[in-house]
């Protein structure tokens, strides 16, 4: 990928874009995906690519992928939002709670989304307006929202909110692939087009790559980052609502740790949570498939689920190391 700033100045570099993609992060992650498929086939056998297993992986990865499509803009703009997992839990529980209170789905969903947007605005105010450290501030939001989610979900810790039509829609499949997975793919494609082909995308890249240069070029750094954090919150909100449809309930644990799984996958796919301006939604999608495939192998082989966390941790380290070797900032 050419960096945002240079593509602003020398748009002639655009014709090298295809070549850059071929040699860049997306290719390395595609190779990783092939390795996962090979390991899966050898460990589990042909069943790994059976229609039913593909449906399982597809519905497992669909919502995180949708969340990633939105969160990618915040990473790209250089403001990572660690609170997306808790925000997703909040949206899920608010939506389920309202449905139990007798609200129709079409009214409950916007309320859940607005709740997330308000939290996103608080994040953005702290980070963009006051200059708070992004990781520390959104870590605070992560804990605060988990507390609110526990309060909403009550002493049982679970809100059953089954809507037959919603459930049927979420679990619709086209061939082996869940429709919701295809929707997430479409959103990833849309995000990729915005990032690679539009002026807005280039502005986001420029702000993340070098905010001073972007500011000199007349881009509103504050505006871009504020909107990016709102988008990230909106994605988590939509994800939370969809989980209510998929699971038929919301629990106080919905979304716990999702931020690390999504970001680890995105970092494997070429994003960086410490510097903006790098990464591509297609890489994020492939990174998520790698992680989903890995978890699936661990699930099917009935290996301890705790091992998944250890593997995610190792993948995370490998991803940042790869990012540094690819030209990321070295620490000292």
């Amino acid at each position, binding site marked *: 990928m050419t960096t945002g700033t240079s593509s602003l100045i020398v748009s002639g570099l655009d014709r090298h874009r295809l070549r850059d993609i071929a040699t860049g992060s997306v290719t390395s992650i595609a190779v990783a995906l092939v390795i996962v498929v090979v390991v899966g086939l050898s460990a589990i056998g042909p069943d790994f690519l059976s229609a039913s297993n593909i449906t399982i992986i597809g519905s497992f990865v669909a919502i995180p992928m949708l969340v990633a499509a939105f969160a990618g803009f915040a990473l790209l703009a250089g403001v990572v939002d660690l609170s997306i997992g808790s925000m997703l839990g909040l949206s899920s529980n608010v939506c389920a709670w309202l449905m139990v209170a007798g609200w129709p789905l079409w009214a409950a969903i916007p309320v859940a989304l607005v709740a997330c947007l308000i939290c996103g605005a608080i994040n953005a105010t702290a980070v963009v307006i006051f200059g708070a450290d992004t990781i520390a501030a959104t870590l*605070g939001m992560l804990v605060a929202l988990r507390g609110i989610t526990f309060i909403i979900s009550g002493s049982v810790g679970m809100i059953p909110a089954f809507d037959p039509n919603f459930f049927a829609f979420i679990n619709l499949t086209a061939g082996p692939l869940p429709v919701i997975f295809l929707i997430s793919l479409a959103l990833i494609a849309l995000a990729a087009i915005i990032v690679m082909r539009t002026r807005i995308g280039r502005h986001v890249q420029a702000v993340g790559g070098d905010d001073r240069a972007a500011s000199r070029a007349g881009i509103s750094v504050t505006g871009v980052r504020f909107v990016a954090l709102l988008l990230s919150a909106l994605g988590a909100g939509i994800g939370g609502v969809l989980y209510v449809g998929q699971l038929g309930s919301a629990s106080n644990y919905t979304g716990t740790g999702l931020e690390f799984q999504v970001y680890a996958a995105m970092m494997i796919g070429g994003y960086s949570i410490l510097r903006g301006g790098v990464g591509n939604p297609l890489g994020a999608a492939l990174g998520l498939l790698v992680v989903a495939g890995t978890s699936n192998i661990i699930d099917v082989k009935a290996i301890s689920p705790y091992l998944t966390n250890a593997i995610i941790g190792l993948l995370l380290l490998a991803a940042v190391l790869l990012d540094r070797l690819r030209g990321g900032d070295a620490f000292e």
Partner: protein
Amino acid sequence: MTDVATTTPETTLSRGAAFRANLPAGWGTAAVVAGAWVLLIIVSGIHRADFLSHQTVLAISFTMAIVGVLAVAQALVGISGGILDLSQPTGLIMSAAIVAWLLERNVPTAVVVVAGILVGAVWGFANATIVVVAKLNPIIVTLATNFIGGAVMFLVYQNAQAPLNSSFSAFGRGYFLGLPNIWWPMVILILVVGYFLPRTRYGRHMIAVGGNRFAAQTRGISLKKTRFAVFSIAGAITGGAGVLFACSNGPFAPTAGATFQLPVIASVILAGCSLAGGRGSIWLILLSVGFLSTVPTSLVFFGLNSNWQQVFQGMILIVAVSIDGWRARRLLK
């Protein structure tokens, strides 16, 4: 106050300007935190007169003990420019679990305590190795090692506890001068580290590296050695917290350390330690930990359960880092 000032990177503040800029960060921060603490106590006392009791003091000082020790470790990492150590929960529980395991095998208490501290130091050293050798940002490294360490602990054990009939556990539940035994090591640690950090050569090296690593390097301070030293010392302190945790708590799972993460980070930032490094007072941690440890007890008296504690702690952290960010921007201008 032991507020320490080094010139901020990328700016050419004169010594005097740096001093003036840091002055409010020392006394001002102390006044604000102390004021907030007193206000919280007064409001809780007015709401429920029985809040002002010895029982409350015990609850608060008990909470303070482990958070305070961990905060010193976190502050050392932060002041020396290592940003944050997110692997503290794993270091804490790893040490506590090994302490419990050794006690069950009738190893002498003194040996167990040293072993607990050493486990923490080794954990810190391991983190430093990855940071220094792979040249990766400590936040990401410790985030990942916390994941890995937690998972590995789950593979080894599900629940651990120090034997209840041991003198070790009796110490953890005992009192000295009306306050819990485990409260005193925390106070001593804060006073000692706070005194020596700005007054010894190695302490000043750490502060210098955090303030401006390139300037420190040209003065002949090795960044790598400093990283190894800071992470190992911070790890040893975390191991010490693990010893205190093991002697004062019931059965604990490998994830038991997670609840400390946020209050520790919040109290370090409230004490004026900038995440950018080079600035912060260890002594102020006593005030910020005291204030933050009063919040949960106070909430109980307002009839709010522990879920509200999370909400308040999260919000306090957001406000604290916002103030920190605002202050850093003003300093740069």
